């Protein structure tokens, strides 16, 4: 991941430019009637317009816009998708922060087919509500009204619902914390035995954690900047185990084709459902470690289970993987 200019979360009480709407449609005519004015206005303003939609919806948009289609970027800002909804939301935020750094706003159309299973979509949506906070982004989720589980798709994560050309508040909206409490982040996929495992206890062991991490990064062939980033990311996460967790943990490593994988485990319980998703406010003196680690890795996923708290991180080690 690359560093992006910071756009801080809005001050408490200030208006958040981020909007997250759900648009339910029954047929293509209804979809065009709702989407058309949004697209017209966004293109007229010169906004960034992205559409992460299936072929059917793409065809509808192309037909509606005609020669203005080149103004749209088809594709999801979080691509390539991973199994981690947290990571997808964080990638969206990173990409959109970069794309709007020049002062433009962004309109993002997204349909649920892109992310997959309802549970995964739900985590992405709830996490996006935190990760995109403060960005000048309007995220419109398109939902076929005939599909099932509309309660979760439409009502849980969208503060506004679009009916025709009008957006109105959604009284059944749930906060990200409520959603992710009801549907916690799932465990990362199981891996085989690690190539290397070390344990650490207390702040005095953090230096050795960094030494081991640097060695693993260099062995994997990462360039100097990526090694430094990996060391900082793992250092922050291990420091969290020491400072906010039980004071000790385990660091394990796996190598896989094109990626270096690490996992930190400790027996403590994470106190938040939404770790490191919200861009830290610049005046805040704490709460940067996990967010920072997300910016320095290609995948970062935290979850809590009966046996404690776990963090899986991945770094891509070869271009094209």
């Amino acid at each position: 991941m690359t560093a992006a200019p910071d756009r801080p979360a809005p001050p408490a009480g200030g208006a958040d430019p981020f909007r997250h709407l759900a648009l339910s449609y029954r047929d293509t005519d209804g979809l065009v009637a709702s989407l058309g004015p949004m697209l017209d206005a966004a293109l007229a303003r010169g906004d960034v317009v992205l559409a992460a939609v299936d072929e059917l919806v793409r065809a509808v948009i192309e037909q509606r816009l005609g020669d203005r289609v080149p103004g749209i970027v088809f594709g999801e800002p979080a691509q390539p998708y991973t199994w981690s909804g947290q990571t997808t939301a964080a990638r969206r935020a990173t990409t959109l922060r970069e794309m709007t750094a020049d002062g433009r706003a962004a309109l993002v159309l997204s349909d649920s087919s892109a992310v997959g299973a309802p549970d995964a979509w739900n985590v992405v949506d709830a996490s996006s509500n935190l990760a995109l906070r403060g960005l000048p982004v309007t995220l419109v989720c398109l939902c076929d009204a005939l599909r099932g589980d509309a309660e979760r798709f439409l009502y849980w994560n969208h503060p506004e619902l679009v009916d025709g050309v009008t957006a109105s508040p959604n009284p059944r909206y749930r906060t990200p914390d409520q959603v992710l409490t009801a549907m916690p982040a799932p465990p990362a996929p199981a891996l085989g035995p690690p190539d290397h495992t070390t344990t650490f206890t207390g702040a005095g062991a953090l230096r050795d954690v960094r030494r081991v991490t640097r060695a693993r990064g260099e062995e994997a062939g990462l360039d100097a900047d990526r090694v430094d980033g990996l060391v900082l990311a793992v250092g922050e996460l291990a420091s969290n185990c020491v400072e906010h967790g039980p004071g000790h943990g385990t660091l394990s490593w796996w190598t896989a084709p094109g990626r270096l994988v690490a996992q930190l485990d400790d027996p403590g319980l994470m106190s938040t459902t939404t770790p490191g998703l919200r861009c830290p406010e610049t005046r805040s003196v704490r709460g940067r470690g996990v967010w920072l680690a997300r910016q320095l890795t290609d995948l970062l996923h935290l979850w809590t289970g009966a046996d404690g708290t776990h963090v899986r991180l991945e770094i891509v080690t070869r271009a094209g993987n």
Partner: protein
Amino acid sequence: MTDPPAVLEVDRVSYDDRLELALRGELDNDTLAVAQDQVAAAEADAPPVLVLDLSALEYVGSCGVRLVLLAQHGADAANRRLAVRLGRGPTRRMFDILGLTTRLDVLDRDDPQDPAT
């Protein structure tokens, strides 16, 4: 795990117009207290300008950001000036990622061989 704990050294140099604290070694949660003590002692002398030089650190975690921001809050409250040197390596990169470089008085923002004021 056999490495000894991280070591942090702080060099304090007074000039007519400023007091500089140059940190060397590794700044993490294990060594943060050393740096905090030195900053507190420097603040007690009420220099018109306090410079925290992080450019020679071999490692700095986000606790280094905390150190700088707390010093900034202290300087603001006392109507004094705080400035930092971040170098061009990982320390600068971390502050850049966090969007803080433009919000601090960074002496070596454009030129590593900065004038001190």
